Each structure stands twice: as C-alpha cells, then as structure tokens.
C-alpha cells in the first residue's frame, strides 16, 4: 500500500510539473501579460527549477528544504508570505505532516484541505444514510421471490438508476424540485455558511445516492436470490415457518455479505460523484477543492488531494477484505 501510494504520488508529481503546467502556474501567479523572462525568473526564484527528484524528496520529507535566500540582502525571505517557510534548512514534508502551500487559496494546504474533507464527510454520511437502507431494502424485496412482478419492476428500476450518472440526475432533480416545484434549493452554497438544512442539502444527497442505489440493489438481489435457493431455506419453510420469518431470520444475514463488499468498494465511485455533485451544487468540499486545485495547477494542494483520495481508495479495499473475512466465517484465516 505504501509502495502504491509512493508510485502514484510520483506520477502525479511528474504530471503537475510538466513544462506547460508550470507555465500556467506562473501565469496565474503573476498576470497574463508577463513576459517569458518574468515567468522564467519567477519559477527560478521559487525553486520550481530545481532537480525533479530533489523537489519530490523535499515534498515527501526525505530531502531538506532549503530556505529561500534573497540574493541582494542575504536574508531569508519566505517564498509565499501566507505560509511559514523554514528559515534554516530542515526536513519538512508529508512525512513530517507538512502538506505545503496552496498557491490558489493562499493558505497552507492543511488549512484548506481538512475543513473541505470535513464538509465532504458530512455529505458522504448523509448519502450513506439514505443509500444503504434504501438499496438493501430494494434488493431484498426484489430477490425474495425471483421472477415475480415486484422483482421485475424493481430490477428494471435499478438498471435505470445505474444508467443515470450524477450530472444527469442532478439536472433532472434540479429541474423538477428547484425550478418547477420550488421545494428545494438548487444550490448548496449556503450549506457551507449557514449550516446544512433539508432545504439546501436534499438535492446533492439525493443526486449522489441515486447512482449508487441501483448497483447495490442489484448485488443484494443477486445474493438474495442465491441464498433463497439454499437447502436451509427450504428446511425452514418445510418446518412451517412463515415466509417473512424465513426471510428476516434465515436469509437476510447470509445475503448481506456480498453487498457489504460492494458498499465498501463504492467509496472510490462516490469520490467521482462527490466531485461532480459538489461542483454542480457549489458545495465547498473536497471535490470542489480538487477541481479548483486542478484547474489552477495548484501543485501542493493537488498532491494533497490525490494523496487523500488514493488513501481512501486503498483503505476501503483493505477494510472490505477484512470485513468480508469477518462476516464470512468460511474464509477466515486459521
């Protein structure tokens, strides 16, 4: 996992440090009409022209960061006034907990990234609260009696929701609930300032939940169908137990093992969804930050974002493996 993260950050570091991207950064920091020499000297002055691996090492915290010395006075001047820079050479990188400096928002990355993550965490929490029970319910209802009318209706409905990406359902919901009915707010921008409410937060949550519901429901249905054909279900039915009791007591627990993995692996998908939904509804969370960082080539912020997202992806994979073994005694390691 550490190796994967190392490789990925190296790739991201390489891509954001390509020549055109550096030029874009320099232009956004100076202004549109700066000459080639100005841009070049800005990059030179701020240390973007050092050796690639040295800079990667500095970011990582295995190479010392040198203080920025003004050639005229000889005193050390911080490169960006809004971040504290080392006055003497020291190790200060990711490993020491220093995420660097955001050039777009003009704050240290940690100050921007972690509140944004918190905001996204709230969004994710509500999405999960809506998505998981609804999709499990649909899946269990559909898988209970395979081939029945309920099953077919719910299956087609869940196929339809998997065919509806967030930017499609977002537009449809915004049109129906915000433009025509006027019940809900089509923007969640107020959620950041005034706290979340039903009025401004329902649309983003609904939009994100819908895309995932279909997929989880289909997985639950498949595993429910399989469980319902097992011998022990027939035994329970034959000994005279009611259908409802069989489903709730005998089938449900075994049918929920597969969806657990799917729900965990859904997190990386939610990450893409978060970006779309936050941009669409203007909610100041992680996805919004990522888009801002990427479109302004804010190197340190973008690296921080990718580190976080790769960490989320890898740790959910790990949790899903461990949780699967926990729920399913047959594959538990002796």
């Amino acid at each position, binding site marked *: 996992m550490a190796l994967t993260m190392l490789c990925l950050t190296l790739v991201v570091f390489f891509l954001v440090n390509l*020549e055109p991207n550096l030029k874009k950064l320099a232009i956004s920091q100076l202004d549109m009409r700066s000459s080639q020499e100005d841009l070049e000297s800005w990059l030179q002055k701020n240390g973007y022209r050092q050796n690639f691996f040295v800079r990667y090492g500095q970011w990582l915290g295995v190479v010392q960061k040198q203080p920025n010395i003004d050639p005229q006075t000889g005193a050390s001047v911080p490169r960006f006034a809004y971040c504290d820079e080392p006055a003497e050479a020291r190790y200060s990188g990711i490993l020491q907990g220093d995420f660097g400096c955001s050039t777009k928002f003009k704050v240290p990355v940690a100050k921007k990234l972690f509140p944004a993550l918190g905001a996204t965490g709230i969004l994710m929490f509500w999405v999960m609260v809506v998505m998981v029970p609804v999709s499990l319910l649909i899946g269990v209802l559909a898988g209970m009696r395979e081939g029945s009318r309920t099953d077919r209706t719910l299956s087609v409905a869940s196929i339809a929701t998997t065919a509806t990406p967030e930017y499609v359902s977002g537009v449809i919901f915004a049109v129906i609930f915000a433009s025509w009915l006027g019940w809900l707010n*089509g923007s969640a921008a107020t959620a950041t300032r005034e706290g979340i409410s039903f009025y401004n937060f329902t649309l983003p949550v609904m939009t994100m939940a819908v895309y995932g519901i279909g997929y989880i429901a289909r997985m639950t249905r498949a595993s429910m169908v399989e469980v319902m054909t097992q011998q022990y279900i027939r035994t329970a039915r034959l000994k005279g137990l009611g259908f409802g009791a069989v489903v709730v007591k005998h089938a449900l627990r075994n049918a929920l093992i597969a969806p657990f993995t799917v729900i965990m692996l859904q997190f990386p998908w939610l*990450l893409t969804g978060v970006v779309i939904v936050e941009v669409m509804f203007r909610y100041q969370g992680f996805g919004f930050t990522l*888009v801002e960082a990427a479109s302004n080539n804010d190197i340190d912020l973008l690296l921080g974002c990718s580190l976080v*997202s790769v960490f989320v992806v890898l740790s959910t994979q790990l949790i899903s493996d461990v949780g699967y073994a926990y729920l399913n005694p047959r594959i538990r390691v002796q």
Partner: protein
Amino acid sequence: MDIEYIGAFGIILGALARFWPVWTALAIILVLSLRFKKSLGLYGQLFDTGVGVAGVMICLFWLFTAIFAGTVAPFDPLAQFPVMKSILPGAIEPGSGQAFLFGGDRLARDVFSRMVYGSQIVLIIAPAATLFALMVGTTLGLPAGYYGGRVDSILSFLANLVLAFPVILLFYLLVTPGIRETPIPQWMAGFFFIFPIVFFSLLFYTRFRGRPELLAIQLALTLVIGGWVYAGLVFDADPLGIISISSNQLNIFVAVVFASSPGVFRIVRGLVMDIKTRDYVAAAQTRGENPWYIMLWEVLPNARGPLIVDVCLRIGYTTILLGTLGYFGLGLAPESPDWGTGIKESSRLLRASVHPALPPVFALMSFVLGLNLLADALREQSLKD
C-alpha cells in the same frame, strides 16, 4: 418580428417525423430479426424477452440516429440564429420555416440538431475506446492469468495502480490543454494502439503457423491495415489522408482507454485463471501446443460470454465517462455538440431556462439504459446455456 410557435402536439409529431429514416431502418431490422430469429444464434435469442428487445432497439435507435444525423437534424449543430436565442421549444425559424423543435440554447443554436449530432461523437468514441481497451486488457490479461507468477504480479500491480486513481483526478491530470503540448498523449497512443496489431498478429500466427502461404496473406493484411490506422492515429500521418484525429480527441481517446483497460485486464485474468483448469486446456498442453495458441484459441473463445456482457456495460460506462469529461469541459471543444458539453452549458443556466438541459440529459440516459438492458438480457441468455 413575431415568432410563431407550433404547439406541444406539433413538437412531438415533428420530432417523431424528423426521425423517419431511423424508424424505417429500425422497422426493417425488427422484421428481419423476427423472421430469421431461429438462425441468428445469440442475437436471435435476445428477441425472446421484452428487456432484450428494448435494449436492442434503444441501442440501434441511437446507432441509426448517428448514421443518419445529416438527414434527421434540420439545422447545422454549430449554426447560430440570433433571433432564436434561448427560445422556447416549437418556435419556427423565420428564415427556413423549420421549427426549433426543442428550442434554442444560450448561443441561439438548435438544441434538437445538437442532440442528434452529439450522438455521432458519442457513438464513435465510446465503442472504439472500449474495443481498444478490450484489446489491451485481453492481450495483457491472458498471459497474466495463464502463467501466473511474476508476470501476473507485475501486471496486476500496475493495473491496481491505475485502478487506485480516482477517475476524475486522472482525467484532470491527463486531459488538459497543457499536456497536449507535450508528447505524452502520443507516447501513450503509440503504446496502446500497438496492442491490436500484436493481438491479431499473434492470433493468426499461432493458428496458421503450419500453413505459411495463408499466414503470409493474413499477417500482411494485419500489418498493412494496422500500420495504416496506427500511422493515422498516432502520428497523424495517414498517407491516404482518410484517418485523422485531432489532438484533443486523441487525448480523450487515450485517457479513456487508459482508465478502462485495467478493468478489462482484471476480468480477463480472472476468467483465464478459471478456464485454464479445464480438461480441454490440459489436453492441448499435452499435445504440446504453443502457450499462446492455448490462450488465444482454447481459453479466449470460452471466455466470450462474460466478455461480451462486460463490453456492453463498459460502452455504457465509457459514455458516462465521456459525459463527465464534457461536463467538466475537459478535452472536447467548447462548441462541440456532444451531450456532456450540452449538459454543462445548460445546467449552469437552469434558473433562466430549463429546456436546453433536457434533450442531452435524456439522450445520454436512454443510450446507457439501452446498453445496460442489452447487457442484462445477454447475461440471462448466457446463463441459460
């Protein structure tokens, strides 16, 4: 000047009438398919269920719309008519007397025509990128699953590396105007587009090694056609000038192939690991067949069922990805009529006018829905066998 409107009824009738070449083609296909259902194999069996018919028909509808786009669409997708700016659906354009069936957008273009032409972009890039991803994933997944060991662990590590990247971040890094100034898209294209050539060369070589005269023809054909397409796509140096691709389209194409081939790789690898334990593989090994012969001619044909289903789903997923790219304004030109760009443009102005947002939204949704229904029907058919 007053603009005349045709009513809601007129809009529906008008839209249905504009699609006449599509309806004709669909009717012909439907009649022929039902007539010869018995002799069409898997395709014929799709017509047994309602889901299958719906899936096939929706997919074919968009396919024919893309083919007949020039006849179906009344206006040019980029043409602007200043009087028709943000106009409501059903307004009649005074110059030509044709109606703006679904209204005009912010830049006074016909929303209906843009939707129809958008299908062309989607239906070229999505299936083509999926097929390339399939080639790459298969060519790498076969040896990984068959040999196992070090080959497998290296390739799997690389695949997991790409899969651990959130798709959206990958696109923000790989599809930018900046990266088009560097040779990276070309390198990646050069790397990915070599796989189909390798795949087909190996396919023919392993099968017809004993018959040099046949092999020579096939290899020559593969190399000539493959090299021709390769030169056109990668170096933009097609000697005949037929195949060419603009640099932003190449960029998108490469990024999409890059993002979706690890998924194919994982599926192929899993299937191969399952199939290689079968008796017919052991028989072929005992006969002393070349490992690549076994992979390509014994294992791969038996893995086709799940692969076909996966390709259907994956084309849908690629369509969603293309829409995402369009939605974030990455890669495609801002005036391009594709559905994602259309959704982006109109979703910002939902408060002002709603109608330009809906046609691309429903177009994208119905196409992906059609593909998913098709995949579902195919899966049920292949489970029956």
